């Protein structure tokens, strides 16, 4: 069971991390959702014990599963949900101002608007690099 969980978490985290490296902001958000679920699954996996459901009245003499990790996972999921909503709102705002959710387009637009404002292109290049990291 531990192995299955470990592999699943690894695959989830890996795909999430890969998506986060894309230039498309929606993919970045989806990648973050995958990573958040990998974390939630890790919390579940940290309390993997064999036993009956921990519901009152407890079965006498038998081991029960750890209820604490379930509560923690629920909390982590709610937080992940809130964060996803916030990120999507931010991405939508980016889309509203730039009509694009591609980071390459964004930095290009920023470079041209910077040139229009009369700032030195060198300085903008510098900032663009930071944005792309």
């Amino acid at each position, binding site marked *: 069971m531990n192995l299955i969980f470990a592999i699943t978490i690894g695959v989830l985290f890996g795909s999430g991390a890969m998506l986060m490296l894309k230039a498309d902001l929606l993919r970045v958000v989806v990648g973050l959702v995958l990573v958040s679920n990998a974390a939630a699954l890790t919390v579940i996996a940290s309390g993997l014990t064999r036993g009956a459901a921990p519901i009152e009245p407890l079965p006498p003499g038998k081991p029960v599963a750890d209820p604490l990790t379930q509560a923690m996972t629920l*909390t982590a999921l709610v937080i992940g949900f809130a964060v996803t909503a916030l*990120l999507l709102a*931010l991405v939508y705002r980016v889309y509203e101002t730039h009509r694009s959710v591609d980071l390459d387009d*964004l930095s290009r637009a*920023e470079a041209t608007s910077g040139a229009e404002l009369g700032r030195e292109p060198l300085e903008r290049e510098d900032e663009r690099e930071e944005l792309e990291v």
Partner: protein
Amino acid sequence: MSLLLAPLCVLWPAAAVLALADGRRRAVGWSTVAILGVAFVLLVLLAVRIVAEGPVELVGGGWPIDVGIRLRADALGASMAAVSVFVVLAALAQDVAAGTSARLLPALMLFLALGLTGLFLTGDVFNFYVFFELAMISAYALSAAEGGPRTTGGALIFAVVNLLGSFIFLIAVAALYRTTGTLEMVAVAERAAEIDPNTAILIAVSFFVAFGVKLGLFPFHFWLPAIYGSAPPAVAAVLAGALANIGAYGLLRFGGGLLPREVELGEVVLIALGSASIIYGAIQAIGRRDGREVLAYSAIGHAGYVIVALGIGGPVAISAAVLFTVVNALGKGLLFLVVDLRGPLVGAAFAVGAFSVAGVPPMAGFFGKAALFEAGIEAGSVAIVVLLFVGGALTFVYLFQAYQQAHWRPSPDDSRPPASRGARLLPALLAVLILAIGLWPEPLLALADQAGSDLTAGSARP
């Protein structure tokens, strides 16, 4: 009602109610400031009590100990909570005085203060995560609150990078629960010695990465200049003066308090990364002309001092790290508040902040730097003392450059009108406070001393 619970009980309902009100109205703004002021006073009272009587504890919901969630405040938590809430208070007051443009800004500041207070005063690892996310989510929203394409882009990068850090932290918490079977910080510290060393190192590295990202330490710093440069001044002040404290606190609490053996093992790595951070931040800051960017890179450099102190270890170094974090938070908060302003008083406030951050007496920052020197001398390492001196000298150079750029050289294209009197008066008050702490540092020194001995006593117990 317990003094421990009081700040949370003041902030929570107020934040929820004020989220419905229009924060652009002056009455709403000033009442938010008043509520934060009350919370700050309560936290100061708590800190005074802790210095007199030792750590305060409270188990939530009347549950027996080890079942209920525990709130626990020691000198480290209380001092960090007080200084963070104070910086939030100053930034909010400044923003309200200048006229808030974002509707939700005051309420978000309250939520941020609530999250910070909660995470500094909790004694439960998972509870720490919940409050931590509350503070971080408010910060993401705050950094995007002003609108504007550049701000939104910066906020998005800030949110994505820090969320990745948060999830790594959550995974580390799960691993800690798996290996120790408890979430209580005190119990975790007791059982940490029994963890299999290989696992413990993995956990410690995860915590280090998570808090390194928050603090903006050298290899994890890349998100920092983008957001510090684009956020509105009040928000940038809060990020640098209050939110960065989470990283410092987390490293001290989880590194120095819970996993001290692993910190000892990684001593060389910590000192090397800290030194790299100090040098990198200083050199980048010297090359910048924009005041905001100078301050952003300076924040990366100052993150390094905390890590170096943690690497040195021992009560003297830990209390130096606490002291440095507190005074540096005040100085950085002040600098970010005044960096975009023009007019009389503002230049003097900037100079006081710059001297404090560079560690020139009689400003508060001097005692932070002096404590770090003391720790370096006690460790008997010439290299560390030289590094601290060079770092301090470089700080002085780039902050003075920034000051000169902003206040001595009247640029022809600077059409910004001088700031309103309220917005200029507040940084001046903050500057006077920094001077006052520099002239009468005994209470702060006592608090930092106790924080250092508390943390190292907890780890030496088993």
